[in-house]
């Protein structure tokens, strides 16, 4: 077998089971960093040996065995960890039994997701930790996606993993009593990866562009692991609806196109259908939540492709429901815009006026919404000021250009 062949086989094994292998090893030792080191060495060994010996029949089991050997070595050579050697040996025995048995090894990724989004972990570290441990994305790539230096991101990840080990954060799916709050941390961490990617979706070359796709992958993993959790499906449906419109957000020349002016033939139908299917399944659980409501709003926007128009009164109702269970300035602003679109323009502006000053000083969507509403009301001078302010608060060049264009119409 060629070296390239081995490379391809290793890559395939990593792609399919990196997160499962890390989760399996870490759930038994409580030490994510040690699990990563051990698996990293196992992968190097595979690259060396598979070209000569051929790819093993069960590549994951082979990697698991190699990783266990490395864990034993590490325990022997590390004075401090010597006391944990017995545990490591037991893990190794379990790994060997699993490798010898024909069945696969248990999937512990859900526990790993809950560890990454544990309340004792710094919220800023949760998403990067998930991306690295569950999807195997390297720290430098994550760093560029979160606009921090690779050194700073590595440090953040190391600190989080040390905390998991030293503080004794358990690898466990929370009891139902705590579950809904703990699940919301997992969902929020995945969604924050998605929104970070979404904001700069125009720049296909940026690392953030790929981040949105990775967030969808995490969302799929979560649905696979918790098929009966409606909010997991709600989150996946929300992300899929947004992903479906990714290409339609910009013209061929890169100009920003707002949602209600997008060419619906450029929306990705299969993703919309998949989102709808998840939302329907979620609804059968009869447990509404923030992500299902947000996905339902996107679902109504998606109907424009079929109906030719948007049911804005329905969107107003959904935002009102959303504000009840998950208050937030984003939903308040979106509800105001929906009111305006539903022929309730003065109410929309009143809703914007009601938001306290200190919350909107540098909140870009507020100024964009305000500018549009004032423009529709014919208050050109105030609209110009709001649109200019919105343009100065965005970091997306295409949006900035769009807002300045709208502002120019006011003069």
């Amino acid at each position, binding site marked *: 077998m060629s070296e390239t062949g081995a490379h391809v086989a290793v890559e395939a094994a990593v792609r399919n089971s990196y997160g499962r292998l890390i989760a399996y090893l870490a759930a*038994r*030792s*409580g030490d994510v960093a040690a699990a990563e080191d051990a698996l990293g060495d196992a992968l190097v060994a595979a690259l060396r040996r598979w070209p000569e010996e051929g790819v093993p029949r069960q590549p994951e089991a082979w990697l698991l065995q190699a990783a266990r050997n490395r864990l034993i070595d590490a325990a022997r050579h590390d004075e*401090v*960890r010597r*006391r*944990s050697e*017995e*545990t490591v040996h*037991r*893990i190794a025995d379990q790994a060997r039994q699993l490798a010898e048995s024909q069945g696969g090894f248990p999937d512990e990724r859900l526990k790993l997701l809950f560890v990454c989004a*544990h309340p*004792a972990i710094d919220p800023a570290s949760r998403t990067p930790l998930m991306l690295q441990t569950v999807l195997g994305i390297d720290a430098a790539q994550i760093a560029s996606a979160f606009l921090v230096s690779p050194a700073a991101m590595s440090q953040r990840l190391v600190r989080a993993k040390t905390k998991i*080990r*030293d*503080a*004794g*954060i*358990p690898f*466990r799916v*929370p009891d139902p009593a705590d579950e809904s709050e703990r699940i919301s941390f997992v969902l929020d961490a995945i969604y924050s990866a998605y929104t970070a990617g979404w904001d700069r979706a125009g720049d296909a070359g940026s690392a953030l562009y790929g981040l949105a796709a990775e967030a969808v992958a995490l969302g799929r993993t979560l649905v696979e692991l918790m098929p009966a959790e409606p909010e997991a499906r709600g989150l996946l449906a929300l992300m899929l609806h947004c992903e479906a419109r990714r290409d339609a957000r910009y013209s061929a020349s890169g100009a920003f196109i707002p949602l209600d002016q997008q060419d619906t033939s450029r929306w990705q139908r299969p993703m919309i259908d998949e989102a709808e299917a998840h939302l329907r399944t979620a609804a059968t659980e009869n447990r509404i939540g923030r992500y299902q409501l947000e996905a339902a709003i996107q679902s109504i926007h998606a109907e424009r492709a079929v109906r030719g128009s948007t049911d804005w009164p329905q969107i107003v109702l959904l935002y009102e429901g959303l504000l009840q269970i998950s208050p937030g300035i984003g939903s308040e602003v979106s509800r105001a815009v929906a009111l305006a679109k539903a022929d309730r323009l003065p109410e929309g502006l009143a809703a914007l006026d009601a938001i306290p000053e200190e919350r909107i000083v540098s909140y870009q969507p507020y100024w964009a919404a305000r500018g549009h509403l004032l423009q529709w009301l014919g208050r050109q001078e105030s609209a110009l000021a709001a649109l200019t302010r919105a343009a100065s608060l965005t970091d997306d060049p295409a949006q900035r250009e769009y807002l300045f264009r709208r502002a120019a119409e006011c003069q």
Partner: protein
Amino acid sequence: MKYALLVHHTPEHFDNRNNAAALAAGRAYGEALQAAGVFVGGGGLESPRAATTVSIRDGKRQVQDGPYAESKEYLAGFGIIDVPDLDAALEWAARHPAASYASIEVRPLLGSHFSSAEKKSS
């Protein structure tokens, strides 16, 4: 794993904690820890004004009154508990009678995760 529950009080709370209700709540909490079999040790602390600091510098013992360093919060008490993991420690910290107005720092004892790896993985 063994965890220290460190109770931090503001100066105002520090001076007002010796009322009968607070003392009774503290006693009941200690009894609950013992009944659950997780109590290793601990107790409340007198004011920093009662503290004396010892250090050895250049082979000489130095004893000082204090510390009197100005601080927003003072260590008012500590408990050491032995529980399977952080979630269990956080549960106990949340039950501490001072948790509703002061803050409880939950910190693992040094190296504790190695010695109890056995329990964790079972």
